[in-house]
């Protein structure tokens, strides 16, 4: 289904759209306030962007350096070209540890690789431990936002879900009560887990360590209790030196939620004695995106979600309308690289207002890339016949003043003289909720000619 169709369905419940819009706008405002407090914020963004650009231009060397430093610290490093390889590697580690219970902290990469269903089929219990992720896992839905996975759910909906799955009492959606029940439920899971899986926010080439950021402490609860830690990262998570964390940790949480930093920024450099640490480095289409000059910078992304919070379309259509692991503006420039046909409507789900590019902490030119994807899609994907015919004809008309003059006049004639029912028919998407402009007697050309004659 196209984005516009899913968005239209989401818009059937206007009160919910208003709520969704306001909740995310509030996060955007918190981001603004937080950024205002940082001396040199725009310079910080420039640094973030510059460091990431350097990383992409030297990515192979950094990965080799990272691997070598990680190995020196006893970390097992694995490489996966695609999702299947990634999942197989995870499974092989679980088999080695005879692991039946896994706790996972938030990782968009494992979502992208569909790790949960893969492991569940093998009889392994996989529990998402980030509260928002646990909520959508119980609801059997994908996350609708990369930082706020359950932002599409009201507290009443969570209440019902918890009653059903965790046996909680009805609380009319009392957040404190629901969180305390989730804490108990998940604590039990942490204590019984064999292996913990986490994502990676940053992987440092010159130390071989990784950094994971959470507010809840779920990554740490998982890792420090389990026998083994598997950290899954896309190749683009590399940064050159540890000091560069000073740039990215200043940007990340402020952009994401407006906090000055996440509650926990955990630096894993070595496994605890008697335990194992594994890192899986995953490509899964990223090197292909690296080859596309116009879209390469999309790999700068540090997954803060700021572009979603600011996007007026995302706020009013919900994350599920994008039908991709990463929704919103950044998802709309990443997804066509993965499957152009399936995601061809996403670059059009934007007014190109540019707010996403302005909030992006690593200065990805998101709206310009959306424009560029449109050009690619029109060339490579079959377009609706009417849309194509209309726009192709327009191209010819607009290049010929005579034809244009004629077309302009006939359109005006139609607007002026056809009865309303003919203009406001079902095919007229403009007229469904909007009036058409009133037509004045002369167009400007005619007025100008008359004035010059009179003058």
């Amino acid at each position, binding site marked *: 289904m196209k984005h516009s169709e899913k968005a239209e369905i989401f818009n059937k419940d206007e009160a919910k759209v208003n709520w969704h819009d306001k909740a995310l706008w509030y996060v955007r405002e918190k981001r603004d306030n937080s950024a205002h407090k940082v001396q040199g914020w725009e310079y910080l963004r420039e640094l973030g962007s510059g460091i990431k650009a350097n990383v992409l231009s030297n990515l192979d060397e950094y990965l080799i350096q990272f691997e070598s430093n990680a190995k020196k610290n006893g970390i097992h490093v694995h490489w996966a070209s695609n999702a299947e390889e990634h999942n197989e590697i995870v499974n092989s580690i679980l088999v080695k540890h005879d692991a039946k219970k896994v706790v996972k902290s938030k990782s968009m990469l494992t979502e992208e690789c569909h790790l949960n269903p893969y492991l569940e089929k093998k009889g392994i219990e996989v529990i998402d431990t980030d509260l928002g992720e646990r909520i959508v896992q119980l609801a059997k839905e994908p996350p609708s936002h990369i930082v706020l996975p359950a932002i599409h759910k009201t507290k009443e909906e969570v209440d019902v879900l918890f009653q059903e799955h965790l046996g909680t009492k009805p609380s009319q959606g009392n957040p404190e009560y629901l969180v305390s029940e989730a804490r108990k439920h998940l604590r039990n899971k942490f204590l019984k887990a064999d292996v913990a899986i986490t994502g990676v926010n940053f992987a440092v080439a010159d130390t071989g360590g990784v950094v994971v950021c959470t507010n809840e402490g779920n990554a740490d609860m998982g890792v420090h209790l389990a026998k083994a830690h598997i950290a899954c990262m896309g190749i683009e998570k590399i940064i050159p030196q540890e000091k560069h964390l000073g740039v990215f940790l200043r940007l990340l949480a402020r952009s994401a939620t407006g906090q000055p930093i996440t509650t926990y920024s955990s630096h894993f450099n070595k496994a605890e004695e008697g335990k194992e640490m594994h890192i899986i480095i995953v490509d899964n289409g990223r090197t292909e995106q690296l080859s596309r000059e116009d879209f390469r910078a999309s790999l700068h992304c540090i997954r803060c979600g700021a572009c979603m919070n600011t996007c007026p*379309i995302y706020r009013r259509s919900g994350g599920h309308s994008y039908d991709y692991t990463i929704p919103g503006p950044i998802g709309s420039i990443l997804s066509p690289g993965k499957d152009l046909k399936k995601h061809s409507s996403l670059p059009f789900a934007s007014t190109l207002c540019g*707010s996403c590019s302005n909030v992006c902490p690593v200065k990805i030119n998101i709206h310009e890339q959306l424009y560029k994807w449109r050009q690619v899609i029109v060339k490579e994907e079959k377009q609706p016949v009417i849309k194509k015919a209309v726009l192709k004809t327009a*191209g010819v008309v607009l290049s010929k003043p005579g034809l244009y003059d004629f077309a302009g006049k006939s359109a005006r004639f139609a607007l002026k003289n056809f009865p309303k029912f003919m203009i406001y028919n079902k095919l007229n998407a403009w007229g469904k909720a909007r009036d058409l402009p009133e037509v004045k007697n002369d167009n400007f050309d005619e007025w100008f000619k008359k004035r010059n004659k009179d003058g």
Partner: protein
Amino acid sequence: MKKTKVGLFIPCYINQLYPQVAIATLELLEKLNVDVYYPQGQTCCGQPLGNSGYEEDSKGACNLFVENFKEYDYIVGPSGSCIYHVKHHFDILEQTPEVIKVRNNAYELCEFLVKILGVTDLGASFPHKVGLHKSCHGLRGLKLGSCSEVMGPHFSTEEDLLNNVKGLELMSLNRKDECCGFGGTFSVFEEAISVKMGKDRIQDHLDSDVEVITGADHSCLMHLEGLINRNKQPLKVMHIAEILNSSL
């Protein structure tokens, strides 16, 4: 001294549907001691095609634009979004000296008045409560003002002009620079979201006691006006050129 030669660019939809905006623009420029010419045979900057992915098919329109305007010192139009397209998306043409000249010298009306002519007071009078809709291509594209997302000092070309209009009360909005949802063909291909965004923008103006919504991009205003008229809301829309040219 030779007077500055300005080529007046009137976007296609303004020419056909909003001649009063074009007239106000022309009259404003004529007041300001520049030589204004209105080249015949103008059509469109090609933006609707480019934004829909049909950039290749817009080359004819783009070349015609350059042909029409290559001889002027400045090209001035009452539409931030069209000017943005000329400045940023005419990179699909071969960059001949003419193309480069046209791209460098194309200005949105407000920017031309303030930056090039150095005028902010046009002697206008408009005793109404006005809400300014900052169109995205003007604001974020042409940088006519500071954006709420970007950290730095506040500035606004349109506010500078409106603050000098006698009797005009510029109302403060809750969301100062949110997109109205027009977005060219977005307005029809993503009809539901486009309409919702427009409704929300209008509500913000209503909540802020606005009588007249203005802006430097009439395409946004056309979308908002369509909603206002359909829903019979107590608001008027006027292009900023009309306000700056009024002497009530």
